């Protein structure tokens, strides 16, 4: 029996000018005591001991603080196995949990001068760059869905959304974006 082409097939989403579905990625949830984060970070070439609600970048990888004992590790789709083995080596002896969630969620880029306003249709956080500066990230809600929101720069955001909520989240974004293009 021939292998099926192992191309990843993301869920269907609602189209809208400001919203772009980002290519498939490798994702891991790393959980454990703060004490493991130093070594783990070094192994991946970025800092995992960042302050609360901040992301850190390192080469092809990035890491998002989701909670005091929880990080979301993002990398290129092909890097999943390597991430696991690198962490496996340095963390062998330390209690921790590493779980591959590459397919659990999808990523959106929402960009443009209107980005924050569009998100404000469903996200109750203060998205003024003063209050939510580039580099900040957090789990939060968009209307009735949970999302991970990460501001890349003043007018572009990175969203992580559980795949079955992708249609809904993109739908809300589309409706909000559409509303902004109206007269008056």
């Amino acid at each position: 029996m021939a292998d099926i082409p192992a191309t990843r097939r993301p869920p269907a989403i609602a189209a809208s000018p400001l919203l772009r579905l980002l290519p498939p990625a490798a994702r891991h949830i790393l959980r454990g005591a703060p004490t493991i984060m130093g070594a783990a970070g070094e192994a991946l070439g970025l800092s995992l001991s960042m302050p609360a609600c901040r992301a850190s970048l390192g080469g092809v990888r990035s890491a998002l603080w989701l909670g005091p004992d929880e990080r979301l590790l993002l990398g290129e789709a092909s890097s999943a196995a390597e991430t696991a083995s690198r962490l496996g080596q340095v963390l062998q002896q330390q209690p921790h949990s590493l779980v591959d969630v590459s397919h659990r969620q999808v990523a959106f880029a929402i960009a443009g001068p209107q980005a924050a306003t569009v998100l404000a249709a469903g996200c109750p956080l203060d998205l003024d760059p003063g209050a939510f500066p580039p580099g900040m990230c957090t789990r939060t809600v968009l209307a009735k869905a949970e999302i991970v929101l990460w501001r890349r720069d003043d007018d572009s955001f990175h969203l992580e959304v559980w795949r079955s909520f992708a249609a809904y989240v993109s739908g809300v974004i589309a409706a909000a974006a559409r509303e902004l293009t109206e007269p008056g």
Partner: protein
Amino acid sequence: MLLITCPYCGARPELEFTHGGQAHLARARDPAAVGAQDWADFLYMRDNTRGVHAERWRHTHGCGRFFNALRDTTSDHFIATYRVGEPPPGQP
């Protein structure tokens, strides 16, 4: 919609949280040893304080942590929020 200060993430909208009921009701280490009335008290009886009371919240759609809060149930204003394991501020 309340504004709740998560000890880890700061002030956040209530929509991100789940309410966890009265705080500081510890589950007995050996429930088998607990008498019928005491067990019922643990399961069901609540102070339901009118005034300042200690309650649990979880920053479910945030950092995911449970924490405790002192809130005045006659105004819904928070006096303080603090981490699990810490005593309520102003008390030893």
